[in-house]
């Protein structure tokens, strides 16, 4: 579904990604783990078109997308939940969801999508008139995920959904991810909290200093002694 071939990327002179290749199959949940500054967020930015790669190619459903604009990529069916949610704090919950369904196709199915979302996250329905900025941390992350689903994506990318959250809220967020996974979405998640994330993963990648160090099924990861020591704290 998503194929990345030898992507490199840089901020100005400073290179962050070095020839990364990876893929996500339809219906699969893939996660990328690694320490801060390993280039995980950059990877998602490159896929979503916020950052142009300096080298390499990206295909989505067989179509090349590395030269497309972000809003075009969203239309093709990739949505990104940015780190920290990045809601529009002065818009209401409903408006946040509305803007999530901005593309023409999504607009047509807005009602249906909204019902689905309210089914998935009932609390949002109660809060729909509230300003997004007044939500609690967990609700915000929930709304961020919901907002990304409004565009009717095929692939949902999540950037560190648990970052900055207290443990008990963190657990709830992973629960949301599990819920959308069960809805059949393909997921590419980037996460520092490797242990929790691996529980959800079908396939996993390890990034360090902008390089792909290791990849394999979730079990392979858990068994790998290096990863065990450095990332799982076992």
């Amino acid at each position: 579904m998503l194929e990345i071939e030898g992507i490199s990327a840089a901020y100005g002179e400073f290179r962050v990604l070095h020839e990364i290749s990876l893929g996500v199959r339809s219906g699969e949940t893939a996660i990328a783990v690694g320490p801060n500054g390993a280039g995980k967020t950059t990877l998602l930015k490159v896929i979503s078109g916020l950052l142009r790669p300096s080298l390499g190619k990206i295909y989505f459903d067989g179509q090349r997308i590395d030269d497309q604009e972000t809003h075009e990529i969203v239309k093709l069916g990739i949505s990104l939940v940015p780190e920290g949610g990045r809601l529009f704090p002065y818009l209401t919950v409903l408006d946040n969801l509305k803007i999530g369904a901005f593309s023409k196709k999504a607009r047509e199915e807005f009602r249906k999508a909204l019902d689905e979302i309210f089914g998935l996250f009932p609390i949002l329905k109660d809060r729909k008139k509230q300003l997004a900025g007044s939500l609690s941390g967990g609700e915000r992350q929930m709304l961020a995920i919901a907002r990304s689903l409004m565009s009717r994506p095929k692939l949902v990318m999540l950037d560190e959904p648990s970052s900055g959250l207290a443990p008990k809220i963190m657990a709830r967020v992973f629960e949301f991810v599990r819920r959308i996974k069960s809805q059949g979405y393909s997921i590419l998640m980037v996460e520092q909290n490797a242990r929790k994330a691996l529980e959800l993963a079908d396939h996993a990648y390890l990034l360090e200093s902008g390089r792909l160090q290791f990849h394999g099924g979730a079990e392979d990861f858990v068994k790998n002694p290096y990863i065990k020591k450095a990332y799982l704290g076992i």
Partner: protein
Amino acid sequence: MFEQILNAAINGILLGGVLALLAFGLNLIFGVVKIIHMAYGQFVMLGLYLIYVLTMQVHLPLVLSALIAVFAMAILGLLTQLLVIGPLLEAPRLNQLLALAGLIIVFENLAMVIWGADYRGIPLYLPILKIGNFFIRGSCLFAFLGALITLGLLYLFLNKTYIGLAIRATAQDTEIVKLMGVNSRSVYFITLAAGGALTGIVAAFFTPIYTVHPHFGSSFTIMAFIIVVLGGMGNLLGGFISAFIIGVVTSVSAVLTTTEIADIIALLIFILVMLVRPQGLLGTRGI
């Protein structure tokens, strides 16, 4: 004396309507594109010229000329975005500001080349309104009502349409809005076009009040900035309110002192308010 002051206050409120119209577009552009549009007054000047030419030389009805002007100014807004603001989006703020200041030179002299150096005005009279001892200036009342209607329409546009939603969202987070499938460049274009169209509307309401000449715009620029900053930059409602404050303050203090000193007083009040409340009177973000 009291009656005079009261009359001045009424005049000030009406003048506030005129100024509020002027501040709308400037505010909208600042809110979304985060750019101080230095050449905004010059847009109004070009709009006035256009209405003049269409009415007096092409002999179109005034309303039609105004509509065409609104449309043409929207296109000029698009061009500005395309040729000047677009290439400078990543540049330092000062560069953006000065490039737009450069546009002042271009527009003023362009008007001079096209229309010559003469003053142009359309003899247009609205009926005189007299209530008791008070005279209400019809032209300003007209502009005042125009400002209210424009604000209402703008509110509907921003709150009831998808594009309006995208504009509000862009004002809050330029990057993330792209992830919603919004082409943020189109949003900029639309904002600049809307800003341009607003100058066309301003020009239409100015037609019964002012005569246009190539340097017409610059006399409004500072006043418009003061209003926008005073209300909280990017805050439409704040700009609306502070336009009335400035209108009443200049008008009343001109009666108490002189017209000349009133301008100085307006500037002083602006500077003092800034020092006490740097974020402006209604200093929160968002449209």
